[in-house]
Structures are given as C-alpha cells and as structure tokens.
C-alpha cells in the first residue's frame, strides 16, 4: 500500500509540470494572450469579461492559479472557431479516438505478442527474421503514409472499405456498418506498435529463457508448455510496460492518422484547432491527452508493482 | 637535467616532517543518524625521503585516509601540516598549492586512465592544469614517461586499452611525477598487478624515490610488499591506528595482537616458521555499530574485561607504538607489566 501511495505522490509533480506546460501554450502563441483566447469578432464587453475572468491583468502565477481552478472544475475555456466549450468538444472527440484505440491496441498487443513469442521459440527461423525485419523497417514507417497507402489499396484500387469518415454514426457500435470505417485507421495505428511489441516480447522471452530458473524447470522434467507458461508470466510485467508506452504512441499517432482518415477524434480535433488557429481548443485537447498519458503511465507503474514482487520493496 | 617540473623547494630542513596528520576523522552518514567511522582519529607523521607503509584489511579506512590526504573528500576533523604549513584554513596553504606537492597513484590502473585520451595527454593534463602551454606540457609528459622507463614515442600516443597492466600503472606513476611532487600517495598501486610485474614496478618506485628525493605513503593490504618498500609501517583497523613503528621492528616483534594475527595469517614459505598463534577469525565488526573500548577486542585472543572499557591510546617505546592495554603498565590487563616495572 505504501508503494502505491508513493507512486501516486511521484506522479503529482509531473501532472503539475504538464499543466504548467499546457498553460504556457497560450503565452507562446504570437501576440497578446487576450487576442489568442477571444474570437477575432468579439465585442469589447466580451473582451473585458474574458480579461477579468482570466485575470489577465494580474501576475502570471495568479493567472495560472485562476486557470488551474477553472480546469479542475472542468472548464477548459471556449473554442474560438465553434464557440462551444472546449471540454465538450474534447470529450466528444475523445470517445471517437478511444473507439479506434480500443480496436488498435488489443490487435497490436495480441498479434505483436504472438509474433514475438513465435520468433523467440525458433530463433533464427523465418518468423524470427520477419519480426526482426519488420521491427527495423517499422520504426521508419510514417503511420500517416501507411494510412494513405492503405486507402489507395483497399478503397481506391479494390473498393473494399471506405476511405474516410466514420459513417452515419447511427449504426450500432459493433455492427459492420460502423466497424468497416474503423478497420483502415486502426491498422495504420496498430502497425508500428505491433512491430515494437513483437520485437520487445522476443527480446524479453529470449532473455528470460536463458535464466537459470528455466533450466531448473526443464531439469525437474516439466513439460515444455509448463516452462513456456512460467516464462510468459515472467515476461508479462515488461510487456505491460511496453504496452503503456505504446498507448502513448497510439494517442500521438492518432493525431496524424485521424487527419488522413478524417476520423473525428481528438487528433482530428487538434488538426482543426491548428488550421483555425484556435489556441483554447488546442490547449484543452493537449491537456486532456497529456493527462491521460500521465495517468496511463501511473497505471502501468502500479500494475508492474502488482505483478513483480521485486518492485514492491523499492 | 630532465624537463620534469622542479619540485617546491624544501623549507623546514630535513628534521621537519614532510607531512603531519593530526587526529584525522571522516564519518560517512548512513540513513537514520548512523555513521560509518571510516577514519577515526588517525595521527602520524612522514619524514622527508621516507616511505610510510599503511596496512590493514580491506574496509579499514586506508583508501579513505588517502583521499583525505589528497583533499579529494573533505575531512570532518583534524589537521594536515605539509612541511610546516597547515593545509586549508585561513593561515594555511591552499589545496591547489598542496596538490602541487603531493600526488596520488590510484589502484585500478584500468579505470584511472581516460579511455578516450592517448596516455601522453593524460600525463600532460596535470602540467596543463598548472599553467603550461600545450607543447610544454607534452614535453613534460614525455620526460615523465621516460622517467618510468616507457618510450614516449612508442607508448605516448597509445590509448590505455593498448597497454598492459604494468605499463598502465607506469603511466599512472608518470602522471603523478609530471606535476613535480615531493610526496606521492600510492593507494594499492601494485596490488592489481602480477607478481613479476609487481616487483618491477616496486623497484622502479624505489629508484624514483632515490632519484627524485620523493616521500611515499604506500597503502597496501599486502604485507610482503609493504615490508619490501617501507621504512616505517602503520597498521590500521576499523579507522584507527593499531600499531606504528619501523618496519623491521613491527614485523619481527609486533606489539599489537592484531598485528600479530595479521602477520600470522600470511602464508609462510618456511614450514618451521609457521606460528601457532591464532590467526584472526571472523569478520571485522560492522564499522557502524562499533563495540565500546578497543575495536579489536571482539576478535582478540587476549581480550579481557578492561579492554571493552576504554579505547586504548598509542603507547610504547620511542618510535614503536601500539594501541593495546598490554603495552600500558598498570592498565589492569593481566598481561600488562606492573607499574613498578615501568619505573
């Protein structure tokens, strides 16, 4: 329990730092921060009201505290381009992103893990060489370009799947009608994490297999499947750490992939914020995504502690 | 003349010790208020041209003592006097001035040379720091390498990994010489070398001491090596001095039970000379929780109740002292001479 508490406390300064960086985004934008957060056609009354509400005539520290107070109450400001609350925009978009991630992440994990284990089972075999090759090429693969190529193949050349969008939105979540829109973006998102998970799993399993306890298990006459089960269980904490990192990669990658597929998620929202120079929308989206990443890392940390007794003392 | 820097001129004359250490102390704090007593009230002096050997088991504070002398770590208490001048403090000479006169050779010849620099640059670094031009420093480095019998043209441009252990240690000695020191602290300087190479380096050290009028503090756990090179020897145990005296006397007639045990524990080539004295058993006590009284008492075959009462001071003859109650007349130890015997 002490470990859990300590990890929680360690994450707090990080979360604080992340909030400061996000707060600063408005101030690194060119020009007066006031002009950055009010629409260009705002009336003088609106400008004055915003100026007062944000404390823009007060010192920076006070401005930050006012901003933090609002954020903690779920108020992320107002989008300049849509004049809707940023929190609402982000929540709607986030749901769509999570739909993609919910498809891409397990796919990347299962396929990547299976490939890694298969490669480690027969080192030097064709699966192993393929996994190693994919890992080398995969890290240099721009996921947005993978998306474009997939669209060219599956939508333009073979007309199998829709190229962009997410359909009518009325179809049931798990129906083919809505799933078919998700397949290409999910593959674009999942491909690179899959390669990395495969490579890491392979390295991890190979490393564990060389440990003495595996030799002991074999010496005791355990069946190969029992040995494999022991190895995989020991590999799990490290795999979870990789998955946590890849989750962050997926969220980052979604920015570009969603833009390619016009998938109305948080990444697409960021793209829109950039195109419309909508800094409040940018700030809010970045803050929420970064905080999700911080929370994921914390969760991974805690899971690892739970699964690996050696970390509990630390 | 060689082109090594001239050492700082002698000031106090031959009678004044080159280095006096008074009551040096260094404690390393551990968590929860506990401290390791690494060096605990060590005093000694080294005469000019002398080699003082320092022996003891690993962990007895030898290396910490060397680092205190070199000011590589601050001392918690005590005084260092170099040729009459206190080191540090308002009236003393600066640490930089002291390092101009005292140099050190480290134990691990492999990690004590920068792997990315040709060895001549490592040797030239000292003179560079002390204000010589690049070419002048390199010239000094070459002279220093010659001084340790290495061919500067052949060895100088090489990298440490291209040299043997003995060559690396010679380079380390050359690096110390390149400053033109009066005294060199040798911290286990030959311990990592093969026996045959060890002998060569030891002979080189003896020759250098004579040729360059050096003074050595020679730290080692190897009694035979210390006996070979030292004039006097100081025995340390758990951060304190157990015995100090001329090397012949200490080895022939050790006065402290710890020294006796230490001498007995070394292998003898002559079966007839193998003593029946009990070698030390067990490990040194944890230097964190020190026993009250004599630090050696828990492992000492002669320990009595009085030994655990107070920490004995160095006592005994004129220049051969031991910190043992047996040496103190009337101390209450059953083996100590009576008071009348002293009178």
């Amino acid at each position, binding site marked *: 329990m002490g470990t859990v508490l300590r990890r929680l406390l360690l994450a707090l300064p990080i979360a604080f730092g992340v909030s400061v960086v996000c707060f600063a*985004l408005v101030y690194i934008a060119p020009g007066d921060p006031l002009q950055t957060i009010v629409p260009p056609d705002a009336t003088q009354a609106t400008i004055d009201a915003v100026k007062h509400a944000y404390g823009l005539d007060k010192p920076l520290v006070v401005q930050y505290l006012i901003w933090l107070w609002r954020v903690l109450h779920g108020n992320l400001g107002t989008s300049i381009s849509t004049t809707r609350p940023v929190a609402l925009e982000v929540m709607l978009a986030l749901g769509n992103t999570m739909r993609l991630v919910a498809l891409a992440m397990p796919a990347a994990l299962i396929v990547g893990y299976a490939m890694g284990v298969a490669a480690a089972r027969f080192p030097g075999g064709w699966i192993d060489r393929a996994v190693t090759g994919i890992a080398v090429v995969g890290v*240099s693969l721009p996921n947005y370009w993978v998306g474009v190529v997939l669209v060219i193949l599956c939508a333009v050349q073979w007309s199998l799947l829709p190229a962009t969008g997410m359909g009518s939105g009325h179809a049931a979540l798990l129906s083919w009608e809505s799933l078919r829109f998700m397949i290409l973006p999910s593959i674009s998102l999942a491909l690179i994490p899959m390669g990395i998970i495969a490579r890491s799993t392979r390295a991890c399993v190979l490393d564990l297999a060389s440990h003495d306890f595996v030799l002991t298990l074999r010496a005791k006459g355990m069946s190969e499947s029992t040995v494999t089960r022991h190895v995989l269980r020991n590999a799990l904490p490290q795999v979870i750490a990789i998955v946590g990192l890849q989750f962050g990669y997926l969220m980052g990658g979604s920015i570009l992939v969603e833009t390619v597929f016009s998938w109305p998620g948080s990444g697409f929202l960021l793209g829109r914020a950039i195109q419309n120079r909508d800094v409040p929308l940018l700030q809010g989206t970045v803050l929420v995504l970064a905080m999700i*990443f911080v929370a994921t890392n914390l969760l991974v940390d805690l899971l690892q502690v739970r699964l690996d007794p050696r970390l509990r003392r630390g | 003349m060689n082109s090594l820097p001239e050492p700082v001129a002698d000031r106090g004359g031959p009678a004044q010790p080159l280095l006096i250490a008074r009551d040096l102390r260094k404690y390393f704090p551990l968590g929860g208020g506990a401290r390791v007593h690494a060096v605990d009230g060590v005093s000694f002096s080294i005469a000019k041209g002398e080699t003082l050997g320092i022996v003891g088991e690993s962990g007895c504070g030898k290396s910490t003592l060397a680092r205190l002398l070199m000011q590589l770590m601050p001392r918690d208490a005590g005084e260092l006097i170099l040729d009459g001048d206190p080191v540090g403090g308002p009236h003393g000479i600066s640490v930089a001035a002291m390092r101009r006169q005292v140099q050190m050779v*480290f134990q691990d010849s492999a990690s004590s040379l920068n792997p990315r620099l040709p060895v001549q640059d490592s040797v030239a670094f000292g003179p560079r720091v002390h204000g010589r031009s690049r070419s002048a420093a390199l010239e000094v480095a070459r002279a220093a390498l010659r001084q340790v019998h290495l061919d500067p*043209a052949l060895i100088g441009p090489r990298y440490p990994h291209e040299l043997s252990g003995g060559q690396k240690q010679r380079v380390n000695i050359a690096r110390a010489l390149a*400053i033109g020191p009066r005294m060199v602290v040798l911290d286990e300087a030959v311990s990592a070398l093969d026996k045959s190479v060890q002998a060569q380096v030891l002979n080189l050290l003896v020759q250098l001491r004579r040729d360059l009028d050096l003074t050595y503090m020679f730290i080692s756990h190897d009694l035979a090596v210390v006996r070979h090179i030292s004039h006097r020897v100081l025995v340390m145990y758990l951060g304190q001095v157990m015995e100090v005296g001329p090397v012949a006397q200490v080895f022939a007639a050790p006065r402290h039970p710890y020294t006796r045990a230490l001498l007995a524990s070394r292998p003898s080539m002559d079966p007839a000379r193998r003593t029946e004295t009990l070698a030390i058993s067990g490990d040194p006590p944890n230097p964190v929780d020190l026993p009250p009284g004599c630090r050696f008492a828990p492992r000492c075959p002669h320990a009595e109740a009085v030994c655990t009462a107070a920490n004995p001071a160095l006592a005994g003859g004129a220049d051969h002292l031991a910190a043992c109650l047996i040496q103190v007349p009337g101390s209450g130890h059953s083996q100590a001479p009576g008071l009348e015997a002293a009178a």
Partner: protein
Amino acid sequence: MAEGMSIAPAALPAAPGARRRRNTYWGEVGGKLIRQPGAMLGAAMLAVIVLAAIFAPWIAPFDPNKGSILMRLKPFFFRGHLLGADELGRDMLSRLIWGGRISLAMGVVPVLIAMLIGGALGLTAGFGGKLANTLIMRVMDVFYAFPSVLLAVAIAGAMGGGLIDGMIALTLVFIPPMCRVAESATAQVRNLDFIEAARATGAGGFSIVRHHVIGNVLGPVTVYASSLISVSVLLSAGLSFLGLGVQPPTADWGLMLSTLVPSIYVVPWVCALPGAAIFLTSIAFGLLSSGLRAAMDMRGA
C-alpha cells in the same frame, strides 16, 4: 636526466603518432562502420538523397514551382514527367528532389541543436551536483510525460506553425531524451577513477568536464542523436503534413503528401510518392544509426 635531453630530438617521431591519435578512436569506429553492409546501404541511400537535394537546381528536370493546368495530376512517365505531375501540374520528380532540402533540414537541424543543448544540460546535471541534477532532470521528466508527437504539435501549433516554429518545437521535443542520455553517460564516467585522478592533479570542474568527461559522453550521445534523426525525419514531415511547416508552394515532402491526399482517386501512386521519400530517408538514417551503434559497441564507453 641527461638522457632526457638527448632523447628530446627523438620526440619528433612522436609527431606522426600525435597525428595518428586524432583519428584513432573515431577512425576505428569508421573502419568498423564501413564493414557493415546495412550501414553502407543506408549511407548510399542517404548520399543519393542528400546529393540530389544539394544539387537540385542542376539535377531537377523541371522548375518545381511551375505548373500548368493542362498537366494536372498526370501518371508516371507522362510526356517526360518521369514520376508524373501533381495537383497543380508541377513535375513530381523535380518537387521531390527540391523537397529534400526542407525535409532534410527540418529533420536534421533540430536534432543537432537538441544534441548541443540537451548534451550541455545533461553534462551539467550529471556533473554539477545534486541540486542541478534534481532541477534539470525533474523539468525533463515533465516534457517526457508528453507523447512526442503531441508535444511537437502542441508547441508548433501554439506558436503559429511556420518552418522555424516547427524546428523549435522539434528541438524542444528532442532535448529531454538527449539530456537523459548525456546525464546517464556522465554519471557513469563521473565515478571512474580517472576523474578523481584528474581532480588530484588540481584541475577544476570545468577543465575536467572539458578534457575528461565530454570525450567519454560524446560516443553515446552521438549514437543516440543519430537514431533520433530517423525519428525526427518522420516527425518533422508529420508536422508539415498537418500544415505546421513550410507554406505552399514551397516543396516539402510532408506538405506535398497532405496536398496530394485529396487526389488519390485520380493518380493514387503519384500521391503516395512523398511518403515513400520520407520513409526511405528515415530508414536510411536508421540503418546508418544502428550500424554506428554496433561499430561503437565494440569497445565500451
């Protein structure tokens, strides 16, 4: 010693040795690099890409910014246009060659600047005592808490998103990992005996860092920086793709990809070309980097 003086002229033969040593470590690494087929493949690819970018004015068959309505969206080999023409009728091959200039600069320059700044911060953190370490590394931790694409997009997006803004954003993204690598390399060196030996000669901290630490930190930092370039090429093209780089009509691979995407139904594979250029450049840097890592691994840091 008299012999010392008499040998002094013999110091002259040491001069070639002195020259030899300048090349020895990095020369050795270079020698090992040349013997690696993967690294050499990467180097060859890179040579083609970089030379093409440098000599673009002489190599490019057409003016990259001159198009014609009649030539819009033409397939491969169309009337002398080897790789077709884009949505404004400009020659694709010429634009790809010219685009390498901005794309390479935007990929490489931020890593180099981050290497300098992050390296200096890492050295300071690793050698400047506990307070400096805590201060610097905790700030780095915060930037680490962002996925790199998100941080780059956030900063470039907030700043307005020109070429310079994009490069600043990328530099800021790469400083923390660079700093971490430099810090851990410094921490490893810091505890070695030769640093203590250098202190015993009376050298100050700055002089020790300059002569004894940097040389030992440079290796790991260079390897890491070279691996970052591969990432940086992807990331910078991604920023351009989102409109956070150069503005049209300047040729740049990321920007070209984004303006061509709407035309994939007309000339699909022409539209995919800029992405292929990004991919090949990144993989060329990646191959070279892993070769470099292997070459420097032979003998520890």
